[in-house]
């Protein structure tokens, strides 16, 4: 037991150094978005800001994240931040964290657990809302250009099946298609969030549906790049012209916005990866003994190539539509 108390003392020493230790379990580095997310965390929880960040990359595997959290618990970190690979499967390990008295903050995707007290707060995007925003813009745009009653054929190039972003964004579109009787969802096919797959799927869709397609709804920028290439290669055009195809996208990365500016992507709905500051706010309020809001959405914008629509509303809230200029692009951090 003398050994034990020595341990305890040592731990005390290290916590006296003043830094707050944060263990962050990240999904991986599978996209630019994710890299930006990691960077945001690393910049926020730097030594200069009074933190010690223990960063773990799970390489897209939930089991690695579970291992990492167990490891954090043994390291007796002050806070655990988890960007979960999946929404489910966290009950056991979060319970272990709770028993060890370590608050857990979830970022990005939501977790589904049997007991909400297993995590302290959540910061992230509302993917379904993103989908709804995009659909709302499309409706407003069609109305504005006088195509409000035309028959509109849409194809959805989905993200990786099962990913929260895919589920939310697809849901948003499907709901809108149900509402608007003149919209038809011709096909849903996954492009796995990559450019190459997006291109391959689009090639195949073009062959099948030929000239019918009016709108391509890509669930991230990379897919949109691929789809645009496929469309151009098939001798069609993207843009606002009469027989052209409208390409919609999500994420709003720098490269994505460049295409918006060029008019290739008509609308890019933002998915904000800069979670660091929000998480820091939560930790600060916890340190101060306050109880933060359980769910916190990051602010996300809508970027369009054209001025036709200035404002949209989704879920009862209004959002401004930003028209992309060089200025907007140069301000982008990722």
């Amino acid at each position: 037991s003398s050994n034990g108390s020595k341990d305890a003392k040592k731990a005390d020493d290290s916590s006296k150094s003043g830094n707050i230790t944060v263990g962050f379990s990240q999904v991986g580095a599978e996209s630019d978005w994710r890299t930006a997310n990691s960077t945001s965390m690393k910049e926020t929880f730097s030594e200069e800001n009074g933190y010690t960040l223990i960063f773990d990359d799970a390489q897209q595997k939930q089991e690695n994240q579970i291992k990492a959290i167990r490891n954090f618990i043994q390291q007796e970190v002050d806070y655990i931040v988890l960007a979960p690979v999946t929404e489910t499967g966290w009950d056991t390990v979060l319970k272990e964290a709770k028993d060890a008295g370590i608050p857990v903050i979830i970022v990005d995707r939501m977790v589904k657990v049997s007991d909400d007290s297993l995590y302290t707060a959540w910061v992230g995007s509302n993917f379904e809302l993103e989908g709804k925003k995009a659909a709302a813009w499309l409706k407003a745009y069609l109305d504005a250009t006088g195509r409000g009653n035309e028959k509109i054929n849409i194809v959805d190039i989905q993200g990786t099946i099962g990913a929260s972003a895919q589920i939310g964004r697809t849901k948003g579109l499907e709901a809108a298609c149900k509402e608007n009787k003149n919209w038809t969802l011709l096909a849903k096919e996954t492009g796995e969030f990559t450019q190459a797959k997006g291109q391959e799927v689009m090639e195949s869709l073009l062959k099948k549906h030929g000239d019918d397609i009016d709108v391509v709804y890509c669930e991230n920028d990379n897919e949109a790049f691929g789809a645009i290439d496929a469309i151009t290669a098939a001798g069609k055009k993207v843009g606002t012209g009469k027989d052209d195809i409208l390409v919609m996208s999500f994420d709003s990365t720098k490269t994505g916005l460049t295409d918006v500016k060029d008019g290739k992507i008509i609308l890019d709905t933002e998915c904000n990866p800069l979670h660091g500051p929000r998480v820091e706010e939560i930790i600060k309020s916890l340190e101060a003994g306050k109880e933060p809001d359980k769910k916190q959405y990051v602010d996300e914008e809508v970027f369009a190539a054209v001025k036709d629509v200035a404002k949209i509303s989704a879920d009862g809230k209004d959002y401004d539509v930003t028209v992309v200029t060089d200025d907007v692009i140069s301000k982008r951090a990722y």
Partner: protein
Amino acid sequence: MSNEKKSFNWKAITQHRLFLPIVCLLVVLLVNVIKTPNFFAVSIKNGVLYGYLVDVVNRASELVIVAIGMTLVTAASGGQDISVGAVMAVAAAVCCQILSGGQVSTNELMNSMALAIIAAIIVAAICGAFNGFLVANLGIQPMVATLILFTAGRGIAQLITKGQITYVRVGSFKVMGGYIGKCPVPTPIFFAIAAIIIVNLVLKKTALGLYIESVGINGSASRLVGLNSTMIKFLTYVICGILSGIAGIVASSRIYSADANNIGLNLEMDAILAVALGGNVLSGGKFSIMGSVIGAYTIQALTTTLYAMNVSADQLPVYKAVVVIIIVVIQSPVFRRSVDEWKKKRALKNNKAMEGGH
């Protein structure tokens, strides 16, 4: 008389080792006649060839190139190189990073194309050499030796691109994954054909093919007849690395970027599958490059067919699995033997019936 001649040839054809792989490819393609009639329609659209069939041949290019390397590695070392996809990513990263001069995105070439391509291929060859060293010199089992680069490769690629997707939005770079000038045939097809021809030429004009088979069948006997087993195994891994590098450049040119996470993703499994569908034995020894090439086209034909038939991508593996099993069962010696026996029995019965008729 002509009939007799035909049937004689027919037997020779069915005995050929590429007969079944080709039949399987044709069957996969023919399914489309019923399901997707316009599958075989090839037209010129926008100045280039257009059609499902063109897609099959075009999209299969990287797989074909990698499958060739995989065949050689398999034959010589009796094991597979599972790092090919990762090596593709590394080569793509090197190529794009040099072209973009370190920027995330570029609209003009920062360095010469030749430099970038040569550097990428050299790096890929080094990766191959690393694998080859582990397998040939240290005697580590191929799948385990290549597991190292399989895990590290994409990390290295990300390290090179600093974790970002590097875009090279320059026409001349897009050529390798697109079209050369006004040529209506997609460039990747030329790459695949070139790889096939060059490797076949090398195997024809040197004794390498025989050496590889011999080393793969019996290492110790090969050594005693004066072959340097280590060197030959090593060489096949280097060749496989180089071919993966080329495939990586083509793949990155298609998307004019280096996507470290996705270039060549899961391609190793398809390449191994192609080798097997081509009638090659995965435990080494005799091999047929053309078999693997046909296997690769079969896999892509299957994928494209299923797309054309509106099968959703996440369920696609189920169909793929079923078709693969059917193909390998048909090609399996046991199955062929039982068919032969069945035929023999039927012939016997017929004979007896005829005799009875007399």
